């Protein structure tokens, strides 16, 4: 009590009881990596089964559980928490705040996650197995036809939502209330901006997901008929409610990644970000549009043609603000003094592959063409391009970029670059051929397939093992850095980096900005 500059407590209680944004950020990051391994492990089972036609390893019911849990764990357990962890670490440091606005609640948002995912994973061992209706769990497969474990799943979703909402409220309050004097909105680093908007999306749509699973719960246990035509309801109602959440969800995944890329590209181009203002407006437009395009996942459910057209046009529009972002990044690189350390490599990988994924997204948005693409591997290829090469690549970039600041040690550059190149090759080998099988007519979520898809599936599986193995290198590199990396104490680890986080000592002290920093009014945003 009362003492001024104190370091962290020792032992387990430091982590259990902490209110420090850096500790909480660290826990989020490690937790999400653990979930990435678990979700990746499930993906490896999927790819191993799909290595050849025929059923070899798992039975179809278990395969569906793998697909379902892979999607759920990657989205809710790996990607979202990883960016929340990053937000926790970086936002207070980027806006000159002493900590997050509501530190105890911050800790709670985190600690809800591990036991909840444990409960979710434990459904695998329950009678009837884990939920197996896909990560989109369409009714009535997820209600009347679901195993009893669906009840646990529903409550898990409820509390995960609670965690996300509290986390987002915390971020919103921090950004709106804790900026150092002089840090106006239009001076905030883009990562802070993208997270502010993401947090808003989360607060808006997580409750809708809660509503969807609540209706499921009522249908399963209390005899209501929300998703049953016999009682006057409609299974498609579930899809509307789900995708009203689900589509903004995919931008929740990608917007913080946009933020990361917008920090890193200028640093290694040694040139300020091009079009800061338009980046902010573009992000806001994407967020706005994300609320009115949800039914592009449902072109084949039998909507009236007017609805079909509306959702098609609205979806296509998203290409405009996203294009603005891509063009701004490239113009930032244009005539910069580029260097290609690992974070930059991952950002360039992001740029190329995300754009390809965006193009296939645009193709999917064309309703009549989507009649052929829908629920085929073309869709699987699309969303792994935007989510793995988008979100996961940018997360890798972020870790390499800020790791030296976090722990005061430099990672091994050669190993980092190797990680990038193996990832890049493995990733493309896995997911590029999936475009082909998808176009040729292979449906998704099947444990076995017709012979004409065999070659590409084998390629894809090999690629997946390579990509998976490259993550071992990443894990090793990070641990080796923390334990025995080359110490560095330069404040500015990267010569081109801009922003408040680079003005504090390296490694970042346990408490930063107990006194708000002075923001140079003339200083441009980073």
């Amino acid at each position, binding site marked *: 009590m009362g003492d001024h500059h104190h370091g962290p407590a020792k032992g387990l*209680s430091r982590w*259990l*009881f902490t*209110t420090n944004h850096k500790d909480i950020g660290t826990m989020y990051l490690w937790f999400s990596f653990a979930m990435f391994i678990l979700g990746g492990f499930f993906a490896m089972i999927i790819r191993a089964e799909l290595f050849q036609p025929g059923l070899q390893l798992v039975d179809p019911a278990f395969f569906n559980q793998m697909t379902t849990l892979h999607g759920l764990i990657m989205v809710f357990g790996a990607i979202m928490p990883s960016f929340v962890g990053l937000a926790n670490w970086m936002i207070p440091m980027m806006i000159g705040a*002493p*900590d997050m*606005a*509501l530190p*105890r*609640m911050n*800790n*709670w948002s*985190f*600690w*809800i996650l591990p*036991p909840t995912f444990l409960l979710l994973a434990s459904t695998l061992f329950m009678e009837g197995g884990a939920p197996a209706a896909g990560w989109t769990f369409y009714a*009535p497969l997820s209600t*009347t036809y679901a195993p009893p474990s669906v009840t646990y799943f529903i*409550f*898990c979703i409820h*509390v995960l939502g*609670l965690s996300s*909402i509290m986390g*987002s*409220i*915390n971020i919103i*309050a921090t950004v*709106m*209330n*804790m900026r150092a004097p002089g840090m106006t909105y239009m001076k905030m680093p883009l990562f802070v901006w993208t997270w502010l908007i993401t947090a808003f999306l989360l*607060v*808006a*749509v997580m*409750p*809708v997901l809660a*509503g969807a699973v609540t*209706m499921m*719960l*009522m249908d*399963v*246990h209390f*005899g*209501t*008929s*929300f998703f*049953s*035509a*016999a*009682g*006057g*309801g*409609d299974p498609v*109602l579930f899809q509307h409610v789900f995708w*009203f959440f689900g589509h903004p969800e995919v931008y929740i995944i990608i917007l913080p990644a946009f933020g990361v890329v917008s920090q890193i590209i200028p640093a290694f181009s040694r040139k300020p970000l091009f079009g800061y203002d338009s980046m902010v407006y573009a992000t806001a437009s994407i967020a706005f549009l994300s609320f009115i395009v949800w039914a592009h996942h449902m072109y084949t459910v039998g909507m*009236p*043609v007017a609805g079909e057209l509306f959702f098609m046009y609205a979806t296509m529009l998203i290409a405009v603000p996203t294009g603005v972002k891509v063009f701004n990044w490239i113009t930032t690189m244009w005539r910069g003094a580029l260097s290609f350390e690992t974070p930059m490599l991952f950002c360039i990988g992001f740029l190329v592959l995300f754009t390809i994924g965006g193009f296939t997204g645009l193709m999917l948005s064309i309703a009549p063409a989507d009649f052929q693409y829908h629920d085929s591997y073309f869709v699987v290829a699309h969303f792994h391009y935007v989510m793995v090469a988008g979100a996961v690549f940018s997360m890798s970039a972020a870790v390499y970029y800020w790791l030296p600041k976090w722990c005061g040690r430099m990672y091994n550059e050669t190993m980092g670059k190797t990680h990038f190149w193996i990832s890049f090759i493995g990733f493309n080998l896995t997911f590029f051929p999936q475009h082909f099988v998808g176009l040729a007519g292979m449906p998704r979520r099947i444990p076995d397939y017709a012979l004409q898809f065999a070659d590409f599936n084998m390629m894809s599986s090999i690629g997946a093992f390579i990509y998976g193995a490259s993550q071992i290198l990443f894990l090793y590199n990070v641990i080796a850095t923390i334990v025995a990396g080359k110490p560095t104490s330069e404040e500015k680890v990267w010569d081109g980096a801009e922003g408040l986080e680079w003005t504090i000592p390296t490694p970042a002290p346990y*408490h930063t900005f*107990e*006194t*708000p920093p002075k923001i140079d009014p003339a200083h441009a945003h980073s």
Partner: protein
Amino acid sequence: MTSQTSTEYAKYYVPEKSKLAVCATIGLVLSIFGAASIMNDMTFGDPGQETSSWTIFLLGLFFFIATLFNWFRITIKENIAGMNSAQLKKSYVLGMFWFIFSEVMFFFAFFGALFYVRVLVGPWLAGEGEGGRMNGLLWEGFSFSWPLMQTPQEAVGGAGAQLIANNGSFTSANTSLSFNDAHAWWAWLPLWNTLVLLSSSFTCHLAHMGILNGNRSKFNFWLAVTVLLGMIFLGLQYMEYHEAYVEYGLTLNAGIYGSTFFMLTGFHGFHVFMGMTMLLIQLLRSVVGKQFTADDHFGFEASSWYWHFVDVVWVFLFLFVYIL
């Protein structure tokens, strides 16, 4: 305690280590595990078998509520001890605002479901419009009107006569609770409910005026009236449910009308209960602890916002569930 020495900037209180989060998590996870197990016992279980689901649930819930209680107690103590800067208070304001916004979105999902079902699904099932042109093949004889007093299943002659399989059996209600079906306007409970709830919003405002003027007894009085009105509302709601179940056959099983009706009014009722509890706690704080001053009464303000929010939801409910 971390504090700042900056003179140009007020201290922002960053609490030290705290066990609250971990305790709250334990309570929460135990209670959801228990709740899920209870429901599974109910639906899939063997009625003769003893299970510990209720014990786990109640234990978890108790622990959770105790932790929350403690959490608020500590926060209040810190505030009274003067640790909270104006900036921290603003964080609380923002927190409460966005929390209420998330609640709005929760109700939005259910209202959305209601509109979708009423405007699109019903007519489609009855074979009207572009989306449902051919549905007459499945639900011959079903015609749509709202409130839905005959489910498609009953229109074709029950679960056995229906062409599609196992989706449960739905027995329609015989009377709806909408205004058109009321015996007489004065016997129509929702009207009284509306009056009760609207006036409670008003009394809540009077209480606020009281504390703003530093008039504690006025504050206590109007706050007590507000809580009382909340209780009356819940009592009336209970009567209404009883009437629905026992006299009108309007149950959760009564097809989509019963489903949406109970979902919307039920969750609203639960929120009234929460809001009332929050206000009750503020009342006790004022009466017993003599807390709150004219310029520092955030606990009450937050609860009152919540109360007004619950009230606004009711206005929409009244309009779309009972009248239109």
